[in-house]
């Protein structure tokens, strides 16, 4: 008589499986690429990593795009895209400056809240149009990219926010550090952890993946698709708003073109980080690492002797490479699943 012992894997096998999964994960690959880039550049010029300024800039500059990339990942997971984040960032950055000028003495935390809420409002406009009118996100966010940037330029006129208009302690936030790590990076990382936790462990987060994988099935299953998509865009907008406030702190001067073109970096970072453009898979961790990889490459190029004019081309190659890789992996998985199904049916 066969004993009905359950075929449990030994602990060792489970650890190996977990490790294998970790190693095969897309995020690990990108992390390795990032470390590789840093190592190569530091070998050429040790100041890149080891000088005070270098280490600070390494962590600081990408943190703004990281916020945008996290928001973008949330949206892309639901099988949409948000091209208006650059304009939202610019508008919020200008508004931050205006708030400081028009309301002197306002506490900094209030300005942060105002920026986030403003970004959320702009994201809500996107989300409402997309979720309720059921129009492709591409077109709507293309239109709001234009419209928000236009509103920004109209509001700014020929003005600009100068560093001298902003309170000193707000500007100090831009370069302040807690230990060796810049404060802005800490803020961005906290947001990242919160988003990552929500997407993985909370029902709302998991539903986003479901909606992205198959919107029709999600609808039939009874998920509140409209509400979730709306929330996704509000999140993307608020993160862009937060990034706008941080932009004002970091750069000090804000003109009407702030953030112009950053949506491309955000989408690129998310795609490189493993978030499939078709939705339903990927993680915000990947998008964050993707953002760091993109911007570190940008900063590394001049040191490696490549004219920084080639940055855009590098971004383009990385995006195309990432989606080709995604496709190849998807095809392989489908083939393996088909084979497994055929084998099981024997």
């Amino acid at each position: 008589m066969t004993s009905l012992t359950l075929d449990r894997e030994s602990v060792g096998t489970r650890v190996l499986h977990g490790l294998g999964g970790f190693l095969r994960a897309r995020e690990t690959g990108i992390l390795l690429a990032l470390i590789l880039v840093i190592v190569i550049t530091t070998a050429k010029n040790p100041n890149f990593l080891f000088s005070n300024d270098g280490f600070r800039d390494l962590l600081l500059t990408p943190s703004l795009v990281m916020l945008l990339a996290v928001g973008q990942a949330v949206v892309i997971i639901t099988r949409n895209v948000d091209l208006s984040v650059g304009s939202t960032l610019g508008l919020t950055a200008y508004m931050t400056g205006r708030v400081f000028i028009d309301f002197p003495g306002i506490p900094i935390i209030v300005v942060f809240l105002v920026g986030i809420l403003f970004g959320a409002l702009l994201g809500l406009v996107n989300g409402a149009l997309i979720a309720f009118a059921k129009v492709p996100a591409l077109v709507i966010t293309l239109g709001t990219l234009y419209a928000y940037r236009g509103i920004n330029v109209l509001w700014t006129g020929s003005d600009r926010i100068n560093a001298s208009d902003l309170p000193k302690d707000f500007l100090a936030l831009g370069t302040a550090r807690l230990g060796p790590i810049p404060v802005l990076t800490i803020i961005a990382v906290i947001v990242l952890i919160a988003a990552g936790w929500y997407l993985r462990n909370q029902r709302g987060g998991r539903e986003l993946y479901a909606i992205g994988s198959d919107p029709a099935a999600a609808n039939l299953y009874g998920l509140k698709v409209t509400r979730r998509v709306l929330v996704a865009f509000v999140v993307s907008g608020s993160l862009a708003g937060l990034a706008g406030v941080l932009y004002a702190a970091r750069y000090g001067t804000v003109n009407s073109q702030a953030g112009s073109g950053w949506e491309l970096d955000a989408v690129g970072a998310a795609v490189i980080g493993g978030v499939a453009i078709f939705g339903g898979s990927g993680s915000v961790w990947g998008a964050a690492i993707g953002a760091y990889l993109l911007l570190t490459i940008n900063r590394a190029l001049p040191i490696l002797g490549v004219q920084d004019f080639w940055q855009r081309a590098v971004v383009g190659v990385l995006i195309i490479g990432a989606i080709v890789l995604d496709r190849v992996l998807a095809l392989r998985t489908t083939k393996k699943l088909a084979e497994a199904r055929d084998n099981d049916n024997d």
Partner: protein
Amino acid sequence: MTELTANTAVMRTYKEYARPLWQRILFTREAAVYGALILVIIVASATVRNFATPITLNYLLLDITPILLIALPMTLVIITGEIDLSVASIVGLSSVTLGTLHQGGLPIEAAGLAALVVGAVAGAVNGFLITVVGLPSLAVTIGTLALYRGLAVGLLGTTAVTQYTEFWKDLAKSKIAGTTIPSVMILFVVLALVFAILLHFTAFGRGVFAIGLSPEAARFSGISVERTKFILFVLSGVVSALAGIYYTLRFGSARGDNATGLELSVIAAVLLGGVSIFGGRGALHGVIAGVLLIGTLGSALRLASITSDVINIITGALLVASVVSTSVLAWVRRKRIRPGGKKPGSAADTKG
């Protein structure tokens, strides 16, 4: 006996279409765009100083020629349900190719030809990735948007090549004898006719519509979906390169960041002109009217000293409105259908 035949004769007559011809022509999306265009022209001529002058028409047409040119293949691309966001970057790349080769000593004609080839190759890369590798066109063209723009900027840096033979620069801006219409309009009209015939009168064009309505059904009908899409992306690349050559000669300046953001104007105009973003519906004359509408509105507002950012806001809002209105009206129509499925007052409808 005669009564019987008379009765059968009466019973047999039926109208071929549900509505009279004039309604079929006037009550379309395209007609609405034409109507708006005429309205804008009338209002602008009356209220904006210096609008109703010949020179305005000249500058207007010179300004919107790149958009007019690129909107032609873009219409076909969107009708198949795909999208091409990299057109503006191909304009920049072709502009840079023209500039660097000409600066390097090549005569303009040869440099221009090379720029067209570059555009064709760029479109072919798009087409390859979309049809052979099977990637979604949105992602691919976002990537190539960055790649081609990056190549353009990388080649020239932020310098501009501004030395060109006067003959070609003048040709780009010359007018048709006796009128204020620029000569490039001849080029545009020829291309528009070619694309209109291609889209509305050939089997290829019917295939384009079929793919947009349902790629699966089109495939089973024997249409080579991959080949059609590939050809469309190559066409898009070549026409974008042509627009890039014109842009360079008109402004006399080849720069890596020429025409940044042009793809938004093109897509806005195409969607405004009645092409459905979901594919399968659209007409070229509507798109041309859409481009003219946006161009005229922009020209009138600029003349009235309204800054270009307001014009951008209006373009963005029009883009959003034109897409949302389709959905809203469809929703309204669904609500109006009474239980039983019968629409009040009309017989069998054709779904457009």
